[in-house]
């Protein structure tokens, strides 16, 4: 039974996208992932509008002070089990904006992050690979 559940989670990762103060570069590449050239729906990935429906929080940007609590709230609203993927240099470490007065140094200061996808911005292929890596991680059992 747990095998079936595990399979279903791997096969149907629904994502929610949140820009936590990023420059948009990662965000358009993330959206590009949904479009015909890359089409991640063939892997069962759907973009959802509300955190209640989502399994994976795809977050970009260095997280500035004003948005910190909002990111946290979205994370809290997601039902378990949930995963966070940090996309791009900013979400990983603050990137080029590290040290600016209004930014934090990466998403893991706010919530636990399961996967990091480096790049400024990462190519859509890299984002797909990151999601695949997350799924692979799930296969091996959390």
């Amino acid at each position: 039974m747990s095998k079936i559940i595990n399979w279903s989670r791997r096969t149907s990762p629904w994502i929610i996208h949140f820009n936590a103060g990023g420059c948009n570069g990662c965000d358009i590449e993330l959206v590009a992932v949904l479009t015909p050239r890359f089409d991640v729906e063939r892997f069962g990935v759907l973009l959802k509008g509300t955190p209640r429906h989502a399994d994976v929080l795809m977050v970009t940007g260095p997280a500035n002070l004003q948005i910190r609590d909002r990111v946290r709230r979205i994370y809290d609203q997601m039902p378990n089990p949930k995963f966070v993927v940090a996309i791009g240099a900013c979400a990983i470490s603050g990137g080029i904006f590290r040290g600016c007065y209004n930014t934090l140094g990466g998403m893991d200061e706010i919530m636990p992050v399961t996967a990091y996808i480096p790049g400024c911005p990462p190519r859509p292929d890299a984002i797909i690979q990151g999601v695949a890596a997350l799924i692979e991680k799930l296969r091996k059992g959390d």
Partner: protein
Amino acid sequence: MSAQTGSWVEIPAGEVRQWVADFLDSGQMRVLSTITGYQEGERIAIVYHFVHKESAGLNLRVFVPLSAPTLPSISPILSAGLLYEREIQDLLGVTFEGILDPRRLILPEEFPVGVYPLRTNYHYHGAEEKETPGQPGGKAE
């Protein structure tokens, strides 16, 4: 100076609104591009970047003392100025008299009052030096 930069005009701070009103009346304004503020020693400069119909930039500069940074707002006569003035108010602590909407625009709610990131005495520390993650790193001296 290129046409993009255009010419510079300097007037006393108190006459800003009248000057802009006259400029508007003349029908020569194409657009108010933005308002810049910067600190220069003991005074703050506010620059209004216009585009003139004759296809050249026109920059109006006024100075206000750092000790009493106040000047009349142009937002009642030109609504384009409102957001730019609010931004300068947030970041440089300049008061615009008669501004239509004096609330904070850009800085987070929890950012300390009376601290203005664009002033030269403001220094911020990198994230790695922060004691508690997420606290505003900057302090006014």
